[in-house]
């Protein structure tokens, strides 16, 4: 079939004669449904957020975007960025340690499989059930652990702990951040070749030299990428936080408050300004993440 031959030429880069433009135009048509769908259900909502964030009663201005990043809203962004960074750091360190443990503990053979399978489930386990589970563990009144600690003479709520505060959110978000980090770093840790360690030892290096000169530099893109992803994951989370607290310092909860409330047009724009800033933060994080991931994959494909 001539049809087949032409596609073969089109696919390869060595094509001598350019394919006829009529055929190429026709191939494009196959993607129209997909792009039309995305345009309707992703691009239009996203663009209208920016459009509404810039529109005030008297024309377009950058004022709402500025206002969405000042005063109480700025406090919210600072709080959200701080606890998300904290949750990401905890997740990166703990997740890497757990991934390393899973990779090195070869004795019970089933252990590694169990850990990776569980992480696959837990990384997707957010939202309501998780929030309720932590209320039964660490809630102010309903928490079993809270009561046990109380009985032991330690009132964590006296010491400023709350499931909606930085510490509480970090603990709860670790439940899905740590498994996610394990899934990200495990391939990277598997990518550390035994022969590198041997080469390092043969050259007279100690374990410390190995980690400082070989292990950590190879893992760094994965760790950085993991940090960015966990940060974005914590920053964008809504359902879990909505159950745990009504802390209006969390940006996603604040957005929901603006979306639900009866606010005038001017304040409306500020609410959408918050969303616009959130999208900007997420876009920066995820772009950097893709760069880091590409670098990380370089070592894994060896």
């Amino acid at each position, binding site marked *: 079939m001539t049809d087949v031959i032409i596609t073969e030429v089109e696919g390869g880069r060595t094509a001598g004669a350019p394919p006829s433009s009529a055929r190429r135009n026709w191939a494009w048509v196959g993607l129209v449904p997909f792009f039309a769908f995305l345009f309707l259900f992703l691009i239009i909502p996203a663009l209208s957020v920016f459009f509404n964030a810039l529109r005030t009663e008297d024309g377009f201005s950058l004022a709402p975007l500025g206002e969405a990043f000042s005063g109480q809203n700025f406090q919210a962004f600072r709080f959200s960025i701080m606890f998300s960074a904290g949750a990401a750091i905890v997740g990166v360190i703990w997740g890497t340690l757990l991934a390393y443990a899973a990779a090195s503990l070869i004795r019970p053979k089933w252990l590694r499989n169990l850990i990776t399978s569980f992480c696959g489930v837990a990384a997707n386990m957010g939202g309501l059930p998780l929030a309720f589970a932590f209320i039964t563990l660490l809630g102010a009144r309903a928490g079993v652990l809270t*009561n046990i600690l109380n009985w032991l003479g330690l009132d964590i709520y006296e010491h400023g702990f709350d499931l909606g505060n930085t510490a509480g959110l970090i603990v709860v978000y670790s439940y899905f951040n740590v498994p996610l980090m394990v899934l990200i770093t495990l391939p990277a840790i598997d990518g550390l070749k035994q022969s590198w360690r041997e080469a390092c030892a043969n050259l007279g290096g100690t374990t410390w030299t190995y980690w400082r000169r070989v292990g950590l530099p190879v893992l760094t893109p994965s760790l950085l990428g993991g940090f960015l992803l966990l940060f974005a994951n914590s920053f964008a989370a809504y359902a879990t936080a909505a159950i745990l607290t009504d802390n209006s310092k969390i940006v996603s909860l604040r957005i929901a408050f603006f979306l639900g409330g009866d606010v005038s047009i001017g304040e409306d724009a500020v609410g959408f300004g918050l969303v616009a800033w959130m999208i900007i933060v997420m876009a920066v994080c995820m772009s950097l993440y893709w760069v880091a991931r590409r670098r990380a994959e370089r070592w894994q494909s060896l």
Partner: protein
Amino acid sequence: MDLPLDAPLPIDPELGASTTAPTALAPQSVGRPNAKYARIVPITVVTISAFFFLLPLLTLARHSLQNVPAFLLGKDTIFTKWSLEPMWRAFDDPKFMPSLKLSLMLAVGTVFLTLALLVPTAVWTHLRLPKMRTFIEFITVLPYMIPAIALVAGIVIVKPHARWFLNSDFALIPFYVVLALPFTYRSIDAGLRAIDLRTLVDASRSLGAGWGTTLRKVLIPNLRTAIISASFLTAAVVIGEYTIASTLLKKTLPAFQREYTQREPQAGYALNLLALLVTTLLFVLLSVLTKKRDQSRKPYVPPAAEPTLPHTPTGTLT
């Protein structure tokens, strides 16, 4: 065999040996006199993690099955008032069945729309527009940058212009397709990379099959693993999605879960426990289904070839 236990051995589970030089003969102990104790650190990490990940589930189960307030727990009460009855109490609520039915219908609709949209698009891209592949991959990760709470803000803005559509409960389906897109597309794309698509299509076409038959009888059976994993994850996303549904006041299962837990705490906790168990079961089933297929087809899958990120887009479920 006395292997260095703290070393990240690239052991391949199938071959059962290191992919590099015979490790047992390697100068393993050089610079590591404490190899004997090296197991302690990983074991400690795993133990602490196990406690952290199990405790919330256990206390959730206790709250569901034992009707004793946490502050009254003690020697005398620990074994009293246990009952399985709260697990099923939610089913009797008149609002439960409609919400479950809606969530299940949304899940089925989202899975079908996802597959109908993505399988032809991915196949077409691989066959006719291979240069567009990177661009399309970039497009499919856009939902990572627009989390559910931001997407729903956009929907709220658009709503006055499309009330006829957005007032329907099923208007959620296309947005759920978008939310699950990064994973679903990657899964199908990986499935297509693993098969010799062009040869299969050419063979099928030269035997006289049309595009429909080729898709149905050749491509879909070959992409079964990819399609199964895309479908399961999509279903999990839809059944657990709370942000968009609650903001648009749709009465899906998660919305009911929240309202019911506030009304009837114990039975509500039990319902959440049940939701967790069902989701976990879904993932276990998925890993069993996909593993069987992979093993029968390919003798060895290198670990690095697995998708680095088998998870839902950020902020979707959380």
